[in-house]
């Protein structure tokens, strides 16, 4: 317990530092003092405008999206009892992408693209739930010792189907719209204005799942054992599937299909800090948010005024870091 509090404190400090960096950096560099001044003052100084109108909403959105993805990834890994699971493994981002790209193909505006993404994500959730509903029902679940492989297969097949539709949409799209579509697919926080839904969803998802965290620890050891230890497995699995799905849907709707954060943040934290979900779920949210905030700051300042899709940065930085974690010497036993 004390260790978990310490971990959260360290990560929270890192998050605050990342916010300060994100708000201060950009085409107009601000010192820390200027930044504080801009944040607290109510007058219409240029610095205040830049920070509160432009950088703060984008920073909040980045943090919320990163937190949502990392939390959803941690939950999916427990749900599927598979360390390779990520928020998109059940085809959710594919559904959202098809909806968003279809709206772009039709030449509709940003609002319609977001609505399309939401509708696509919802369709993907419902399809997986419908096809794998026997895996979520108690009676059938114990026919096999472990139901997760079928759920995973259902999701992977759905993702393959969405992938084909995405390719089809890209093929049909006129040249002029391809760039926007590719940015959406890579994940991009440029021009994001609505941070509140994602941030609220992050708080809500944490509040919903944190009380279940010890049961998730038990569930990780297998469904049969969890049931024998008094966990209501079917209810728990449905709950975390829905929470993880809605969290992912909101993240994807806000910023596109940003890869990597959802797979690697929870996994890296497990490697370094251990696998107690009570510590891990809040830690994932904090670390995921911080990572994406830093990546987005880099994405908009590295080649400024050129903006990079943030998904490229997360992957380019994350892959070597993760490989290092994987290949370092195992601890002495």
């Amino acid at each position: 317990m004390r260790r978990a509090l310490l971990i959260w404190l360290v990560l929270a400090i890192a998050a605050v530092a990342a916010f300060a960096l994100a708000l201060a950096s950009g085409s107009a560099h601000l010192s820390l003092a200027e930044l504080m001044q801009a944040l607290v003052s109510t007058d219409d100084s240029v610095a205040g405008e830049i920070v509160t109108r432009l950088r703060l909403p984008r920073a909040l959105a980045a943090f919320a999206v990163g937190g949502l993805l990392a939390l959803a990834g941690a939950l999916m890994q427990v749900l599927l009892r598979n360390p390779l699971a990520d928020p998109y493994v059940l085809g959710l981002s594919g559904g959202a992408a098809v909806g968003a790209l279809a709206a772009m193909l039709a030449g509709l505006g940003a609002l319609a693209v977001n609505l399309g993404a939401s509708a696509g994500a919802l369709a993907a959730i419902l399809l997986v739930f419908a096809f794998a509903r026997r895996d979520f029902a108690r009676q059938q679940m114990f026919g096999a010792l472990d139901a997760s492989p079928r759920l995973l297969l259902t999701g992977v097949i759905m993702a393959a189907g969405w992938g084909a539709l995405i390719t089809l949409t890209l093929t049909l799209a006129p040249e002029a719209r391809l760039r926007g579509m590719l940015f959406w697919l890579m994940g991009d926080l440029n021009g994001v204005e609505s941070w509140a839904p994602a941030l609220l969803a992050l708080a809500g998802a944490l509040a919903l799942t944190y009380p279940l965290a010890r049961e998730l620890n038990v569930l990780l050891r297998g469904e049969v054992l969890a049931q024998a230890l008094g966990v209501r497995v079917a209810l728990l699995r449905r709950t975390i599937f829905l929470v993880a799905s809605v969290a992912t849907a909101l993240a994807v709707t806000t910023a596109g299909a940003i890869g990597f954060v959802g797979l690697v943040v929870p996994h890296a934290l497990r490697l370094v800090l251990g696998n107690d979900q009570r510590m891990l779920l809040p830690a994932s949210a904090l670390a995921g948010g911080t990572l994406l905030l830093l990546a987005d700051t880099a994405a908009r300042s590295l080649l400024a005024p050129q903006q990079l899709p943030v998904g490229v940065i997360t992957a380019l930085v994350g892959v070597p870091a993760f490989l290092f974690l994987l290949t370092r010497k195992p601890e002495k036993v």
Partner: protein
Amino acid sequence: MSVPLLEAQDLALRVGSRTLVQALNFRINAGEVWCLLGPNGSGKSTFLHTAVGLRQAQGGELRLAGRALIDWPADAAARQRAFLPQAFHDAFSASVLESVMLGRHPYLSRWQWEGAEEREFARYALRSVDLAGFEQRDVLTLSGGERQRVALAALFTQDAPLLLLDEPVSHLDLHHQVMVLEHLVMLARDHAKGVIFTVHDLDLAARFASHALLLTKQATVVHGPIGEVMTEAALQAAFGHRVTRVEAAGRTLYVPD
């Protein structure tokens, strides 16, 4: 007579169109150690899964401590009976101590974290399966037999009156087979636990169990005190293989043809 820990009334178990158990009536009382015998596919695991509440019976009823199984809330049932599954699959790293402490899950409130008391339970259980000093080992680095003993230790920390074990000694070496079964007998004798375990070694069954439940492919069931059930004729009928019962070194041994 006190309420039996587990009671089957007119129990019927079917898997698909196959009838495994028909009209079974029997009870497990505190202090009894039952071995569950039978050929592959005769329904040993199915019976245990039903008794744990993982699947439903196709007829009749199971009563846990006098109360119908379906009327037990999941968490209360977990304090009344503990179950050791046949197979484990660890996808993630975890320390042995963490894995064993999970057995205390039914006793902790939602917001509670494991503390000194739970660690003490876990250390005690680890000593009983000869794994003292393994607390910080990662379960992924353990051998099959060590992993099974970790699972047994977790089961012991659950501290339930009724223990159901699916092949508790299948991966253990000779020494630890005897050690674990002796521990189960001690729990029944000194702590009034009821125990039922599946096993394929007839000699171990005869040596440690007080009662036997013998399933056959024909869905008939023989049950009762161990000496009455484990006769040459009954075992031969159940397994479809000739068995000779011999007394040697003060023990009852079963020699297959």
